[in-house]
C-alpha cells in the first residue's frame, strides 16, 4: 500500500502481496482414467479473496476438494503456510485452519442457531457426571460472533432452518472463522440465492477478508466474483485459463473467457435475427 493514496489499490503489486496462506503449483487430479484437473496454479494470502470461476464441469469441485483435504492431488504441489502438504483427511486441513463451507452448510435445520454454531465443539463446564453445556456462554458467544460478521439476530434460539439462505450461509462462515479458520473455502455460497441475499453473503465475505482471512470463493457467476475478488482463477474443462489480478482483467473479458470466448461469439451469430 503506497502511503498517501486515497484508496489502496485493489490489487497489490506482486512484490508486496501478502505471503500466501495457501498456494498450489501445477496441481492436478485424475480419477481412474478421467483427468479432472491439470496444471492449476494459484494462491491466496491473508486479507485476500481468490475467486475460482468456471462453468459446470470445469473442475471447481475437484479444486476445492484438494484444498480442503477431501481428495489428494495426484500431481503438483500444495503449500499451506509455506509448508508442502498432502492432506489425508479434511480434519488435517481443518487443524491447520483451512475450513471448507459446503453448499449444504453442515447445519441441522431443526436445531437452534446457537446449538448449530457450536455443534461438535460444544463448550462445557463442571466435571465428571456434572459436566454440562455452558448454555449461557454459548448463546452469548453466538450472538457476539454473528454480530462481528454483521449478522443481527434477535433470537439465537430459533431453529436455523427458519433463517434465510443468505443468513444460514453467513452463520456457517462465522462459525468457521470463530473456530480458528485462517482460510475459508466457500463452495458456491451465492448460487442458490436471489440477488439481495447474494449481496448479503458477499458483504460477509468482504467482512471476513477485512478481518485478515484468506477467502477462496468458488462461483460460476462473474457478477458475484468481480466486486469482491482480488484474484481470479478461471477454470475450463479441468485446466486453468489463467490466474488474474483484478487490474489485469475486466468483467467483460472474464465473462467471455468463461463462456469459452469463440464459442459465445459463434452462438451470438447463430442467435442473430436474419
Amino acid at each position, binding site marked *: 500500500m503506497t502511503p498517501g493514496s486515497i484508496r489502496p489499490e485493489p490489487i497489490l503489486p506482486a512484490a508486496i502481496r501478502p505471503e500466501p496462506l495457501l498456494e498450489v503449483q501445477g496441481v492436478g487430479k485424475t480419477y481412474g482414467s478421467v483427468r479432472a484437473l491439470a496444471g492449476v496454479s494459484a494462491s491466496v494470502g491473508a486479507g485476500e479473496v481468490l475467486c475460482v470461476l468456471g462453468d459446470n464441469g470445469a473442475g471447481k469441485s475437484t479444486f476445492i476438494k484438494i484444498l480442503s483435504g477431501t481428495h489428494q492431488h495426484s500431481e503438483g504441489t500444495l503449500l499451506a503456510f509455506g509448508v508442502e502438504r498432502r492432506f489425508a483427511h479434511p480434519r488435517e486441513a481443518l487443524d491447520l485452519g483451512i475450513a471448507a463451507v459446503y453448499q449444504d452448510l453442515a447445519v441441522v435445520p431443526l436445531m437452534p442457531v446457537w*446449538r448449530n454454531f457450536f455443534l461438535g465443539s460444544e463448550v462445557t463446564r463442571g466435571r465428571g457426571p456434572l459436566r*454440562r453445556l455452558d448454555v449461557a456462554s454459548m448463546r452469548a458467544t453466538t450472538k457476539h460472533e454473528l454480530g462481528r460478521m454483521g449478522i443481527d439476530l434477535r*433470537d439465537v434460539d430459533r431453529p436455523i432452518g*427458519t433463517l434465510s439462505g443468505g443468513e444460514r450461509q453467513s452463520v456457517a462462515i462465522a462459525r468457521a472463522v470463530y473456530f480458528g479458520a485462517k482460510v475459508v473455502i466457500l463452495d458456491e455460497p451465492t448460487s442458490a440465492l436471489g440477488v439481495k441475499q447474494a449481496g*448479503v453473503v458477499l458483504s460477509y465475505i468482504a467482512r471476513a477478508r477485512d478481518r485478515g482471512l484468506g477467502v477462496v470463493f468458488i462461483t460460476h457467476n462473474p457478477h458475484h466474483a468481480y466486486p469482491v475478488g482480488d484474484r481470479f482463477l478461471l477454470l475450463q474443462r479441468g485446466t486453468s485459463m489463467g490466474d488474474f489480478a483484478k487490474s489485469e482483467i475486466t468483467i467483460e473479458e472474464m465473462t467471455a473467457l468463461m463462456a469459452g470466448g469463440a464459442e459465445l461469439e459463434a452462438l451470438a451469430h447463430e442467435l442473430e435475427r436474419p
Partner: protein
Amino acid sequence: MTVAVGAGIDERKKRAHPLLTLVRRPEIGALVAALAIFLFFSVSTQAFLTPAGISTWLYSASLFGIMAVAVALLMIGGEFDLSAGAMTGTTGLIVGVVTTQWGLNIWLALVLALAVALSIGAGNAWVVMKTGLPSFIVTLATFFILQGCNLALTKLITGSVAIQGMGAVSGFDQVKVFFGSSFPLLGMDVKISIVWWIALTALATWVLLRTRPGNWIFAVGGQVTSSRQVGVPVFKVKLGLFMTTAGAGWLVGMLQLFDVSTVQATTGVGQEFIYIICAVVGGCLLTGGYGSAIGAALGALIYGMTLQGIVFAQWDNNWLKAFLGGMLLLAVLVNLLVRRQSGVRA
C-alpha cells in the same frame, strides 16, 4: 452497507407470538391432552381419583413411561427399535430360567440379563450402522427372533410357557426392594417403578438439553451428514441410543418380574408400538431430530390413565385400541402443524 442489510432483514421478521413460542415446545400437546383425560375420568368415574385408583394408573403409566422415554431418545436420534417390547420378556425370562432352573445367584442373573440386553442393543446398532438399512426393518427382525426364542427356549428348558416359583429363589426379597417394592404416600401405595420412571425422565431430559451427547442426539437425528462433517461421533451416539433402549427393556423386565414374581414367554410382545405411540404423542417427529423425554413420559401417562380409566368406567376395553389410534393420528397432525408453523425449511 452491512448495517443497512442487517436492518433490512430485521424489519421483515415478525415477532413470534408468546403463545406460539409456547406451542413450539414439543410436549405441550401431550400436556393439554393429559389434563383433559385426567379431568374426564376424574369426573366420569368414581374410582379414578381415589388414592387406590391413582396408584393403579400411575403404575401402569410408569412401565410404559420408562420404555417410552428411552424410545423417544432413540427416535430423536433418528432410529426405531421394534424389539424393545420383546426385550422386556427376554430379560425377565433369562433371570427366571437361570435362577429357578439352574440355581444361579440372583444378582449374577440380573447382570447376565443386562449384559445380554446390551449386547442385543449393540447388535441392532451395529447392523443398522454398518449396512445403512432402516432400523425399522432390522429391529423388526430382532423382534421376531426374540419373540421366537422367548417361547421356544422357555418351553425347551422349563416345559411350560411361563416361569413359576421365582419367589422361592434365595435373595428374591433383597432384589425386590429395588424392583418390586412399594411405599405409602398420601394414602397411595406407590410402586417403586414410578420412582424409576420419574428419575429416568428427569435424567433423560437433562442429558438431552444440557449435555454434549444430548446435543449430538438431536444432531444425528436431524441431519446425519452435517453431524459427521462437524465431527459428531455418529456411530457412538447411535450405539449408545440402541443400548439405552435395550437397557430400559431390561429395567422394565425386572420391574415386572419382581412385582408379580412370574413371567410369561409372551411378555412385551405387541407393546413396541405403544412405546412409539407414546413418544409421538409426546411430540417426537417420526423423521427424527425433534422431540422430548418429558413429552414421551406424558404420552405414557395418557396411555396409563386411559387404560385404567376405561376399566373404571366399565367400558368394553377394546375401545382402548380405537382411542390409541385416534390419539396417534391427532398427535401426528399436531406435530405436522407445529413444524409448519415454526417455518423450518428442510
